[in-house]
């Protein structure tokens, strides 16, 4: 279990460079690391004589000037973590918001995982952060009790002060620092966390974004904005085909471009790709434009290699075939083949979701400065620790000599949890012995990415005479993320836990399986990952079954989910990942699934007998999906015009993510998730020809624009359950809800995305 320790007691303050006293607290995971370690080590570079491996995941410092420094160790990419973490710590601490300083944590293992993906920041750190705050608060109260020689239970921390009601005495946190620094940290079992009704910030929807003013005045620093003295700019011509090689190149013309100072060939990539640079030719210049011009002037002959035969059209046919030959059994409940034989009728449908790419508004960028045997890096990375270890390995220095500063991220969506671009900057800075900023252009981002895997899925359901589903078969062929880490991996595994094997329907006989699919690009994870394709197939298919059964889609879904229960898929010949959580803490709870479904249908006036409440010509589609331990249902309201074009009129989202720590940011994530889903449903498609990605910018990889986006209503279910994920769970149900609405409006069932191929957008 994690434990909180008073660092200041152990004599580290003298290393911190504070002229006055400071109370420094850290949270530590004793289960992970056995021996105590200096918690403050990372705050200001210092040498800790008592070097151990007991490390905090987050900490706070209270200064004698009454300021409270709170470290945000997770990356900000729009989810609001730089606001939400301080909300949690400040609340339990009883800090005055105006006394807070938010400090962005360097990449360092002592924080626990900093890998900001998987919708995990609050899921994993809500409790430890509360304990860190509560522990400090109780020590300050104890310090005041000692100061005044009164019982501790008469002292109460309120807004950066401790008060003694009986004597009307008040002392500022800052004035208690010296005493508190000498106290022992309360045992975790003695910690008294605040009651819900006493929260000042947690659960409140009135907190301004910590970076709001910097953003609206152009003063926020993103990865692209980092500027070091004597820094040079680099853009790289990467092999157009994965693991392709430079056969020959001529840089004479490039070097003639005004501002170009060097051209450097990088090592070819040897698969597996992992987070290694892709190789190619780097052009170094005094500004970005010169570097881009120089790259355009390069004459490179590439050698494609084994992935040069990758063509999206024939690949799709191969995937379809592979679905019929599953080589991996992922879930087997009951006896599916017998059930199909007994079925009154069988409904079948195939679904297809193409390859997708993240397209954050800020492409990847990293600045590195190698000097004196160490390297300082500033990058828009979701994963500073992985960046650190990959850089250390690539340039051959110890990880502790790699300093990863995390800037704001201009969007991440999973792209920036792959630090290949950080390694590129590090290699170039070391080789050239100068600060280098590597910038990816939009074309680089789309053509040389880590792709959301193209996926073909076949579903069939056996219905009995009363239209009850007695058999469910779901097979899929898609290249696996594992292929990026293990060359030749050709079958999905853990991806099946993201919305496929955890299909929450009450069906006696279930089979899920996967066929083989060889990867020809770097397969990565993108916001919501394979929940996108699985929810699209499962929620579309459920709607098809409702139609086949002549039943209202919402009523049918409720019946399909069945009675209130916790589903344990592991008991049905499956290995269910559950997003790394236990089913005890985060059960797959059908009651919660049905609750969001019912509530969203109320929001949208979804009742067959209430159709009069909808504007004339408006039609609804519905879907529900659990992912990242949260539950989201969506209703999409559309209209169609005489030309057969559809218009999104309104989207309703209802989320149950357990305790809603920052409701305003939860709503903003649901709004954004719906729009992310509109983009992929309408336009999302990345294709390859002879191994080369055919798209390159927002003209051929469009994303939704303002005029295509309807009002989005979001409701959050009040819950005391542990907080689940927020950043990703909103995406999966929206695309199928759109397609279900289109079917309701037009009678046309679209089973292949994107929708713009049908001329209806």
């Amino acid at each position, binding site marked *: 279990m994690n434990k909180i320790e008073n660092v200041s007691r152990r004599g580290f303050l003298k290393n911190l460079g504070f002229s006055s006293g400071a109370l420094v607290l850290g949270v530590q995971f004793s289960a992970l690391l056995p021996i105590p370690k200096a918690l403050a080590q990372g705050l200001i570079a210092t040498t800790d004589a008592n070097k151990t491996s007991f490390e905090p995941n987050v900490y706070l410092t209270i200064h004698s000037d009454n300021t409270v420094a709170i470290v945000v160790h997770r990356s900000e990419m*729009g989810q609001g973590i730089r606001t939400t973490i301080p909300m949690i710590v400040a609340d339990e601490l009883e800090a005055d918001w105006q006394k807070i300083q*938010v400090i962005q944590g360097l990449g360092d293992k002592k924080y626990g995982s900093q890998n900001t993906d998987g919708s995990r920041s609050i899921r994993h750190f809500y409790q430890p952060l509360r304990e860190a705050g509560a522990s400090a608060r109780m020590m300050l109260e104890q310090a005041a009790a000692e100061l005044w020689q009164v019982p501790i239970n008469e002292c109460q921390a309120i807004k950066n002060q401790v008060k003694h009601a009986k004597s009307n005495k008040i002392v500022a946190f800052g004035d208690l620092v010296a005493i508190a620094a000498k106290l022992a940290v309360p045992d975790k079992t003695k910690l008294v966390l605040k009651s819900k009704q006493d929260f000042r910030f947690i659960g409140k929807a009135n*907190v301004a974004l910590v970076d709001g003013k*910097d953003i*609206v005045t*152009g003063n926020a620093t993103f990865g692209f904005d980092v500027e070091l003295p004597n820094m040079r700019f680099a853009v790289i011509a990467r092999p157009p085909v994965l693991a392709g090689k430079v056969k020959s190149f001529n840089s004479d013309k490039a070097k003639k471009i005004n501002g170009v100072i060097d051209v450097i060939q990088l090592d070819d990539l040897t698969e597996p790709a992992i987070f290694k640079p892709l190789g190619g030719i780097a052009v170094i210049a005094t500004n970005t434009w010169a570097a881009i011009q120089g790259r355009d002037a390069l004459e490179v002959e590439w050698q494609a290699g084994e992935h040069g035969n990758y063509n999206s059209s024939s690949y799709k046919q191969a995937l379809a075939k592979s679905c019929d030959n599953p080589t991996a059994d992922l879930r087997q409940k009951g006896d599916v083949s017998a059930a199909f034989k007994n079925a009154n009728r069988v409904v079948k449908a195939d679904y297809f979701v193409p390859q997708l790419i993240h397209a954050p*508004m800020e492409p990847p960028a990293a600045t590195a400065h190698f000097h004196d045997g160490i390297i300082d890096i500033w990058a828009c990375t979701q994963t500073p620790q992985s960046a650190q270890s990959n850089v250390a390995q690539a340039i051959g220095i110890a990880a502790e000599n790699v300093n990863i500063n995390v800037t704001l991220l201009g*969007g991440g969506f999973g792209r920036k949890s792959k630090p290949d671009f950080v390694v590129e900057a590090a290699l170039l800075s070391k080789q050239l012995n100068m600060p280098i900023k590597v910038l990816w252009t939009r074309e680089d981002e789309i053509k040389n990415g880590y792709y959301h895997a193209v996926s073909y899925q076949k579903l069939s359901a056996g219905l009995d005479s009363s239209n009850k589903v007695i058999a469910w078969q779901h097979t899929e062929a898609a290249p696996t993320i594992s292929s990026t880490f293990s060359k030749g991996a050709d079958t999905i595994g853990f991806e099946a836990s993201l919305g496929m094997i955890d299909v929450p329907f009450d069906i006696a006989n279930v089979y899920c399986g996967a066929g083989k699919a060889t990867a020809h690009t770097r397969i990565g994870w993108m916001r919501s990952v394979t929940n996108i394709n699985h929810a699209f197939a499962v929620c579309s298919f459920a709607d098809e079954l409702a139609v086949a059964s002549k039943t209202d889609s919402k009523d049918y879904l409720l019946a399909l989910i069945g009675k209130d229960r916790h589903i344990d898929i592991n008991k049905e010949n499956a290995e269910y990942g559950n997003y790394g959580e236990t089913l005890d803490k985060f059960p797959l709870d059908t009651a919660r699934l049905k609750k969001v479904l019912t509530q969203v249908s109320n929001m949208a006036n979804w009742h067959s007998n209430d159709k009069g409440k909808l504007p004339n010509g408006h039609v609804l589609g519905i879907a529900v999906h659990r992912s990242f331990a949260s539950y989201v249902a969506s209703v999409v309201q559309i209209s169609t015009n005489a030309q057969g074009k559809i218009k999104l009129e309104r989207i309703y989202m209802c989320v149950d993510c357990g305790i809603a720590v920052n409701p305003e940011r939860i709503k903003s994530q649901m709004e954004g998730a*719906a729009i992310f889903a509109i983009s992929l449903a309408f336009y999302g498609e990345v294709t390859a020809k002879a191994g080369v990605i055919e798209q390159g910018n927002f003209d051929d990889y469009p994303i939704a624009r303002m005029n295509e986006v309807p009002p989005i209503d979001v409701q959050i279910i009040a819950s005391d359950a542990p907080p689940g994920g927020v950043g990703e769970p909103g995406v999966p149900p929206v695309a199928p809800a759109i397609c279900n609405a289109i079917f309701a409006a037009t009678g046309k069932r679209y089973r292949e995305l994107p929708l713009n191929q049908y001329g209806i957008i």
Partner: protein
Amino acid sequence: MISLMINGKQHHYNDDENMPLLWVLRDILKYTGTKYGCGKGLCGACTVHLDGQPIRSCVMPVSAVGKQKITTIEGLSNNGDHPLQQAWQQLNVPQCGYCQSGQLMSAAALLAENPKPTEQDIDLAMSGNLCRCGTYNRIKAGIQMAAGMKVTSFNIDDFALDKQSIDEQAIDKLAMDATAKGVKS
């Protein structure tokens, strides 16, 4: 030698005349508030004003600026107090924030031209500005709020701060490493 008037300040530029204004602003003159998103005038992240008109600085050669006055996000107001910047904060419009400089510059040009835009006017003026995080409804609401109009695209009962709260909630932010503070200087 090219003379540029940026946010009321005179600059001299003596490099490639074909360099797009975006890179002159960002790399040469260090106005990094203006962002790169596509390099082809497709996303609007690089929007600045030339004599009050919104343009995509990523596709405009610096030589084409001529005598026109350039306004970037840094020059939209003296202290972040443009009504749009205020509304953006009151509604917590940004998510990642990267596109918001361009969004604000497009919106500011719209309101300067059309102080009471309809929803269609807003869609028309703003549909060239992409936001991958999906903040469109709050952007629209922010424009309507700044224009003193009824907000239609977002339920402001869910979230809207008053100006005083924004000021009260302003807090210090520090980079972890002392050297990181030098990043902007």
